[in-house]
């Protein structure tokens, strides 16, 4: 074969292969792959165009209605379900995997060590997780609450929902913005992880949290899993949970990578149930998903492995600092 023919064939294949892949994916007989593509794109904050550019609203609605409406009514938390036992300040980190994703779980035996770190520059700039941990002189942590992408403001500088620190509401969006209210996730003075929807400042105060942020949805309440449908959105995920004995679980599952495609909310829920979680909630995911321990980033964030600037983090403090 002539050299010219070989070059022509290679160039044709390089150009046409992605076109055919997307052609088969979008218009071929591959319903499941198409559903995952649409649901994954539509559940991101800034990549919805990957679905909207190729599919009409009717197709997007068909898939997303069937896969997003997975949340049952959130039951009231049983006050006596978690008994915080006085125990060691031991922290362990384990490798985990579920479905098509892998990541890390941090088990913090003493829930009193868990706190919130909030960026000092709200409205100006977010901070990478590393800096939020240093700011609180903590030993580790995970990204936590929501943020709003606002034109003209730096990434991660505008938190979403509510932030509570040292028992005070230090930041709050307008409650009227969200019809269902904000999902509040935080710890009370008894170091119990509290999860629930709030629509007014009075409802936030009624939780009497020492620290907390907003995200969601709740995944497990009183040991009952709330996500019933399998879901089809594969994303990097961050979650927080508490076991019956009070130990706190920080979970990160990587995504958008060849080695770890991402996890559905049900994957996260199933993994946390395996680890004995009785209450659990989803936190901000996507490229925000990050976990640090002992000064090292121990997962692989999807944004080229770099920590994104975020407004808040759940951190775990030194054993004798609380």
């Amino acid at each position, binding site marked *: 074969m002539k050299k010219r*023919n070989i070059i*022509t064939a290679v160039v044709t294949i390089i150009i046409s292969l992605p076109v055919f892949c997307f052609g088969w994916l979008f218009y071929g007989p591959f319903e499941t792959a198409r559903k995952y593509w649409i649901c994954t794109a539509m559940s991101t904050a800034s990549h919805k165009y990957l679905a909207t550019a190729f599919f009409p609203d009717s197709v997007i609605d068909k898939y997303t209605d069937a896969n997003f409406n997975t949340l049952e009514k959130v039951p009231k938390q049983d006050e006596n379900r978690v008994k915080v036992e006085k125990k060691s300040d031991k922290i362990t980190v384990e490798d985990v995997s579920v479905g098509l994703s892998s990541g890390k779980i941090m088990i913090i035996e003493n829930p009193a060590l868990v706190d919130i770190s909030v960026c000092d520059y709200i409205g100006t700039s977010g901070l990478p997780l590393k800096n939020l941990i240093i700011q609180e002189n903590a030993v580790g942590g995970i990204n936590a609450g929501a943020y709003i992408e606002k034109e003209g403001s730096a990434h991660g500088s505008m938190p979403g929902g509510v932030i509570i620190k040292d028992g005070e509401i230090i930041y709050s969006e307008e409650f009227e913005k969200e019809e269902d209210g904000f999902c509040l996730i935080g710890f009370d003075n008894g170091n119990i992880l509290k999860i629930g929807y709030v629509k007014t400042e009075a409802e936030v105060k009624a939780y009497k949290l020492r620290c907390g942020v907003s995200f969601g949805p709740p995944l497990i309440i009183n040991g009952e899993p709330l996500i019933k449908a399998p879901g089809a959105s594969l994303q990097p995920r961050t979650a927080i949970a508490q076991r019956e004995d009070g130990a706190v679980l920080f979970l990160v599952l990587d995504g958008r990578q060849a080695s770890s495609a991402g996890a559905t909310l049900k994957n996260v829920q199933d993994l946390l149930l395996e680890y004995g979680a009785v209450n659990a909630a989803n936190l901000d995911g996507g490229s925000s998903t990050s976990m640090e321990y002992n000064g090292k980033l121990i997962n692989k964030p999807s944004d080229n492995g770099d920590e994104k600037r975020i407004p808040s983090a759940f951190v775990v403090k030194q054993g004798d600092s609380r």
Partner: protein
Amino acid sequence: MKKPEKLSLAAVIGISLGASAVVAFIVIAAVEIILKSI
């Protein structure tokens, strides 16, 4: 011995496009099977 006929440019592009379509089908079918299995 008879010299093999030369492939025209159009034939090369056509064969390459066909091969791409088949490979792409196999790739997406594999993805479909993996996603169905989880």
